[in-house]
């Protein structure tokens, strides 16, 4: 029961941050600002979903895998965000 509550609360919070990323994508005025919304809010959203689902898993190996996937997403997001930002800046196309 308590674990169900944990999962419901954490996954719901994660969904709110995914929603924040999407709302940012729609509301922010230029491509570079939208990058902020997508990378930062989704990182936290995914982290909360992972933490929420951890008690549901049967083994440590599954938990380690999920945490590792989250870390990989953070790392690839951090690397790709700056590469995309660099390209947008070079193109000069960062006005709304």
């Amino acid at each position: 029961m308590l674990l169900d509550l944990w999962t419901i609360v954490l996954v719901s919070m994660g969904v709110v941050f995914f929603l924040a990323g999407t709302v940012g994508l729609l509301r922010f005025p230029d491509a570079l600002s939208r990058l902020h919304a997508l990378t930062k809010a989704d990182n936290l959203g995914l982290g909360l979903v992972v933490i929420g689902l951890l008690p549901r898993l049967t083994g440590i190996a599954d938990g380690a895998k999920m945490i590792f996937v989250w870390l990989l997403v953070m790392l690839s997001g951090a690397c790709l965000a700056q590469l995309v930002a660099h390209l947008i800046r070079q193109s000069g196309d960062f006005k709304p």
Partner: protein
Amino acid sequence: MPSSNGKPEMTGGMASTGKLPSRKAAAIARGISYLALWLIMMPSARPTDLLVGAGAAIAATWLSLRTFPPATGCLHFVSMAALMPHFIWQSVRAGFDIARRVFDPRLPIQPGFVACPLGFPEGLARNTFATITSLIPGTVPCGEVDGVLTYHCLDLRNPVVQQLWAEERLMARALIAGRRHD
């Protein structure tokens, strides 16, 4: 401390006076790390799975030695791991920061660019710093202009450069032998 090929190098705080690993040592360490990562992703003791894992680890090691040879510098993973809670906390703050702004009807942002001069030498040290600081609230690095890292900031009213310098001091103490500003 210049390395053998003249490029500046980055070493860990505790290893700042040590040498860079040889190509062979780097290959072994990386190969074991990649295999360990494979085993986390594919926890199976079947010989065929292990064989594919070993092949993938060898291919990844070969590629990493080509794209990122040991002479360009090295990371001190223990120091890096010690900073992980800080990075994750910054990432949490960044997520809340975005949520606060996007759900505010007034959309309180003032985007723009700032140049952030850093003590980190060009190459691995600066790239690592840029990658990690893309997780902190309100900043995304977007390349270098005349050797100075440029950041896109969501809100120019925040003291972004001071915040980045604070991050630099933290990382320089724990991880990288960079120059200081003060």
